[in-house]
């Protein structure tokens, strides 16, 4: 939207607001007797998110219920990873929500790009992996071991997927 801030109804007096330098309390310009929490706009340099499909023009099909459009409109550059690249998407494609390519800087084919979380219509979340991730989040040391084991040990995303016995061909065969 490009606006500098939004008023927020609530959070005044909380530690949530107190700990954030991008929240403050300001008078309502139309009624200076009232004050509201205002939150400074977040404008990321780059947004990266995963979706089901993308086409050659950068049109993408995102989750039905997500906030990807808001994220894309707030960010200077938008990189979308997709389960599949197809020839042409349109507003009528289902399921999912159509985002016109005008908002998108680049699309990247990345099957299992959401793994170990889910990609609706492609695969469910891997609960065991999520639990391992949560446990690893206990300390910097544990998380560093997690990254060594699951990220740095592999030359490529494909090699990682292969180690987890996941690959598009294998999954297609199983369906």
């Amino acid at each position, binding site marked *: 939207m490009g606006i500098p801030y939004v008023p927020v109804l*609530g959070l005044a*007096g909380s530690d949530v607001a107190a700990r954030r330098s991008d929240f403050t309390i300001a008078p309502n310009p139309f009624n200076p007797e009232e004050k509201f929490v205002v939150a400074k706009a977040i404008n990321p340099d780059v947004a990266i998110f995963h979706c089901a499909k993308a086409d050659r023009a950068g049109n993408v099909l995102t989750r039905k*219920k997500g906030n990807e459009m808001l994220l894309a409109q707030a960010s200077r550059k938008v990189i979308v990873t997709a389960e599949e690249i197809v020839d042409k998407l349109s507003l009528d494609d289902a399921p999912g929500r159509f985002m016109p390519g005008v908002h998108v800087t680049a699309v990247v084919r990345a099957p299992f790009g959401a793994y170990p979380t889910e990609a609706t219509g492609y695969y469910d979340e891997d609960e065991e992996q999520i639990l391992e991730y949560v446990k690893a989040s206990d300390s910097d040391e544990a998380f560093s071991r997690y990254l060594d084991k699951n990220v740095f040990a592999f030359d490529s995303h494909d090699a990682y997927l292969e180690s987890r016995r996941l690959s598009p061909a294998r999954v297609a065969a199983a369906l």
Partner: protein
Amino acid sequence: MTQIPECTMEELLAVLISREVKDFEMSACGALSFIPAAGMLLASHTHAPHAEIIIQGSKEYFPFVGGPDWHNMASRGQMDLFFIGAIEIDRHANFNLHVIGDRDHPDVLMPGLYGSGLLYYTVPRIIFFRTEHTRRFLVEKVQFISAAGSAPEGVPRRNREVKIITPRAILRRNEETRFLELESVHPGHTLKEVLDNTGFDLGVKGKVPETSPVTADELHVLRTAVKKHMIETETYPELARTRIMVD
């Protein structure tokens, strides 16, 4: 004196909550809220057949597409009652849903979303529910203020009623002093027991009323129609099966 029927703690809380739900109003609860969900559905099966009920995570009772939809609805003043389960509440009705220990070096860090801190301002009536009435829950000062019991000077707020329903008692915020006070003690519990298990001064002067006992009728509807309905609509079906007894 009439016989007070025996019930589980979850049933007691659900019945007490049901009495707070008003017909023709919109009442709502967020995630992990089996007890308010059961209480609201009990109300809709008894005195509040026209109540609008919103249960996050339920297919049947969640009419929104995403989070912003229902916050915007509450912001416009269309939500009348909301239920929050906090980990700590203090006498100023500040609550903590975020952290145990120091925020920067936490013992336990909860998911603690912003939502309840918004709804605490925008919803006229807020009820806290908790399956314990202890000094670790009802504290002199919360370790982290997820949302404040009173607004800073000049900040408008729609909320005008706060209640806390525990297994031992009902607490209510005094809207003049802004302190939490004891409203009633449940049958089978004593004032001393409540005071001993509360970490702040409850402002008790004189006799404290007894909570109106759970009735056989309330329990009957909860254990039959409401239980069946929760299982059929997949609204916390496992908890409905195991925590609501057979009449």
